[in-house]
């Protein structure tokens, strides 16, 4: 099944890497500057996605400090019936930490109606522009800290 797999070697111990997973502020520095997340199992999160138009939201499915973070992943307004899944795992290596990311479950999203979803996009375009500005503000204030 199609999925995104990425792995990176970080020259720092899992404890130090997890610092950037452990708080909303930490996650804002590398996942998205505007993410709002309740960091506990079952907690919800939301942020403006990679295309700066689509909001991503979901829940924390698993949270094991210094080991893994698993999120459900739903693109709002894209006609998805089911979420995809994001799995982040940390493994200690000799030199540091191997961080592996698996983004899968796209085959299960059950997108029912492509033209309909496009229409929703157009209707939501004005809203998106406002949210873009909001995201910029959040980004600027965070960037100055």
């Amino acid at each position, binding site marked *: 099944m199609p999925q995104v797999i*990425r792995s990176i070697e970080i020259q*720092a111990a899992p404890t130090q*890497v997890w610092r*950037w997973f452990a708080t909303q502020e930490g996650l804002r520095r590398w*996942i998205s500057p505007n993410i709002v997340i309740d960091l506990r199992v079952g907690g919800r999160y939301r942020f403006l996605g990679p295309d700066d138009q689509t909001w991503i939201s979901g829940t924390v499915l698993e949270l094991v400090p210094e080991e893994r973070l698993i999120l459900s992943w739903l693109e709002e307004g894209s006609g998805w019936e089911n979420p995809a899944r994001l799995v982040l795992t940390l493994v200690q290596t000799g030199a540091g930490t191997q*961080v592996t990311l698996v983004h899968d479950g796209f085959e299960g999203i059950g997108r029912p109606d*492509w033209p309909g979803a496009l229409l929703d996009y157009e209707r939501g375009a004005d809203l998106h522009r406002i949210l873009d500005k909001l995201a910029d503000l959040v980004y600027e204030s965070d960037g100055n800290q």
Partner: protein
Amino acid sequence: METNSDALFRSLADPTRRRILDLLVERGPMTVSQLAFEFPGLVTSGISKHLMNLRAASLVSADRQGRQQIYRLEPDAFGALAPWIAKYERYWSTALERLRDLAEDDSAKSKVKSHKTVQRRKIK
């Protein structure tokens, strides 16, 4: 194109059909009875119905060999998912680089930096 894509996602929405695709990915082409063996809770005609649906969505194709139909994954079965995959591939490559830089800045004091990544360093 829209209709192809709709059929694809409707077909993929069913967990049994996704499991059939997984099996075809893992093991290569299979007959209906080989597939049915993997689903003891389903009658063979139920499997055949799912296979018809997968064929209609251009996810699998069938060749007749003697009295058996051999099912295989279509080479471009998941083409409609490609835009999502591509978007996130770029996003996650840069996000993980950001994470690495943050974490390594933290521990820079005593450690030699030797950036080794599976990915290209920068993706523009």
